[in-house]
């Protein structure tokens, strides 16, 4: 289902003819543990040199998928190809995909240099060659001269870079990253996001990044696959996922959105009038196959809402409930007259508003997306 989407969006610079243009491709990969299906019929193609993320809530099967690519699990069905060659029968230590583990898994009994040299020594390279490569890669990740340091002497961000260096020194076809930023504190995580992106540019290696944090995926990736309950919901560029989600799950999971449950009362074209469960009616654009009488959810991005008078389109009245100050991300929490709370990001009005002020919230119907209601 998703192959087409990826091929269409693939950066043209990497496009060469034939299937070998993809560093990694999975076709119809399924993994069952007993009666439980962890990964169901997943296909993806990752062009050379791109940063590809799999984004999903915990337990959606993304780690299982990555472990299959690394070779720690065998798919129940389907095929995994690296540089065009099937690796399903290849043991993990013979696959040229390297992995940065969630907790990094640096070897605590080895020094930084020995950690990086481990893979090279497994390959049987000469001592002189290894020394040169280790020094070279430490330079490239910005930690020259740390060869003899012990792992516990490094800071969180440095460990991160050593874990990446340990993989990159082996020049893998694909680098897998399993939520490596999860253990870092917020400030460092923001910093490492940018650093990872820069490293990926520098090495020009294909990165497959797994995360449950939508902002990590959006900031770093060329392509993002949104995964839910073992399936891919949508594959596309971060912008496409944000602006044109194909399902309620994607709309709710990627980026912030106000979600108003209701039922479609009537439709004209794709424009639908939704009777909200808590009372009132609003207008939005149906983005899937929902039709009159269906239970739906209406998604409104906070920045798609305006408090200005005289905007055309949909308009509801309400009062300012509270101001949520967060610098450039400040929000206004508006209680609309039918009782629901919605977050509005309208920077031009944030400063002038006070709690209890009457406001009218307006949006253009095409920016309010209506999807069939998610099953919980």
């Amino acid at each position, binding site marked *: 289902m998703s192959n087409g989407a990826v091929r269409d969006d693939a950066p043209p610079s990497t496009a060469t003819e034939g299937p070998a243009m993809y560093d990694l491709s999975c076709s119809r990969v399924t993994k069952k543990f007993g009666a439980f299906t962890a990964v169901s019929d997943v296909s993806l193609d990752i062009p050379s040199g791109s940063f590809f993320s799999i984004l999903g809530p915990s337990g959606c099967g993304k780690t299982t998928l990555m472990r299959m690519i690394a070779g720690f699990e065998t798919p129940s069905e389907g095929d995994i190809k690296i540089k065009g060659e099937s690796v399903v029968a290849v043991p993990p230590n013979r696959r040229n995909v390297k*992995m940065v*583990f969630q907790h990094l898994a640096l070897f605590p009994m080895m020094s930084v240099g020995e950690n990086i040299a481990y893979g090279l020594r497994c390959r049987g390279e000469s001592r002189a060659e290894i020394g040169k490569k280790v020094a070279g890669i430490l330079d490239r990740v910005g930690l020259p001269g740390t060869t003899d340091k012990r792992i516990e002497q490094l800071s969180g961000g440095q460990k991160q870079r050593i874990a990446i260096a340990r993989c990159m020194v082996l020049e893998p076809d694909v680098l897998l990253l399993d939520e490596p930023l999860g253990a870092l504190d917020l400030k460092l995580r923001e910093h490492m996001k940018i650093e990872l992106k820069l490293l990926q540019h520098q090495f020009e290696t294909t990165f497959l990044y797994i995360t449950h944090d939508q902002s990590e995926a959006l900031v770093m990736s060329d392509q993002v696959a949104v995964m839910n309950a073992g399936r891919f919901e949508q594959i596309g560029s971060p912008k496409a996922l944000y602006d044109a989600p194909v399902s309620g799950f994607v709309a709710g999971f990627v980026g912030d959105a106000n979600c108003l449950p209701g039922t479609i009362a009537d439709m004209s074209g794709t424009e639908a009038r939704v009777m909200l469960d808590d009372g009132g009616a609003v207008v939005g654009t149906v983005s899937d196959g929902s039709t009159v009488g269906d239970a739906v959810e209406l998604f409104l991005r906070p920045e798609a809402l305006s408090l200005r008078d005289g905007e055309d389109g949909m308009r509801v009245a309400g009062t300012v409930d509270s101001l949520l100050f967060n610098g450039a991300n400040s929000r206004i929490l508006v209680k609309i007259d039918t009782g629901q709370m919605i977050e509005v990001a309208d920077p031009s009005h944030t400063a002038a508003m006070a709690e209890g002020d009457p406001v009218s919230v307006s949006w253009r119907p095409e920016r309010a997306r209506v999807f069939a209601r998610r099953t919980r």
Partner: protein
Amino acid sequence: MGRDAGRLSLFLLFTPFVLWIGLLIVLPQIGIGYVSLREKIGINEFSFGLKNYADFFNEPIYRNTLLRTAWISILVTALALVIGFPVAYYIAKIAKERSRAALFLMCLIPLWVSDLVRAYGWIVLLRETGVISTVLLRLGIISTPIEMLYNDVTVIIGLVYTVILFMIVPLVSTLQGMDDALLEAGYNLGGSRFTVFRRIIVPYAMPGIVAGCIITFMLTAGSYLTPVLLGGKNSSWFTEQIYNQFITRYNWEAGATFGVLLLLFTSLVVWAGLMLTGQSLATTVAKD
């Protein structure tokens, strides 16, 4: 006031410990050391000197018994490690969470009976009229009963069986602390099974290995019942010599000398082992 209370509780806590160490370990050792330096020159007449030590080194049978004890103890320790490591690895890494406690408990069961009963178990199995001999005879595999007791192999088997638990426990606790991701990283970066074992598992488990080896070696070298019961007259063990000097020959001076020498010699072996593996007591036995 608070400080006084703190001092009092510290004092109360330490008193039993100090009494135990002082009265049961330090004082007897000083006594033994003192007796070992005493030379008997007549009835109740003593002078001080190193004659007892000279006697030990001049009598090959004593020397050889000590070396033999050390050598068999090292062998027993090595065997306990080779057999214990897979068992510990299975319990710590492969067994399911639920069966882990049961397996561990099964390792502990032999400790519930005394050394004597365990040694007697081997005697029941291995003696000339024992279970194995009789069964083989009935099956027609052998024609005359065989005596499997009273040789070195039996002593080694018995000792390994007695001490292996003390190898398994520290190994399990170190291996349990190892993140499986380390092994996966080891494979992912291109290591074979052997490489992962040699470069990741063994170095990680080294504190546990050394701790287990020290404990089993000390227990083996200092054991008395098992070698005496299973080895009989043929398997002279150094503790047996000490016993003989004290009890049979009533030569306390020689017995004390042997005791001091056993302590020094085993300490030397442990020290050499620590040097060889680059570990220290703080990173192994005393590790929390």
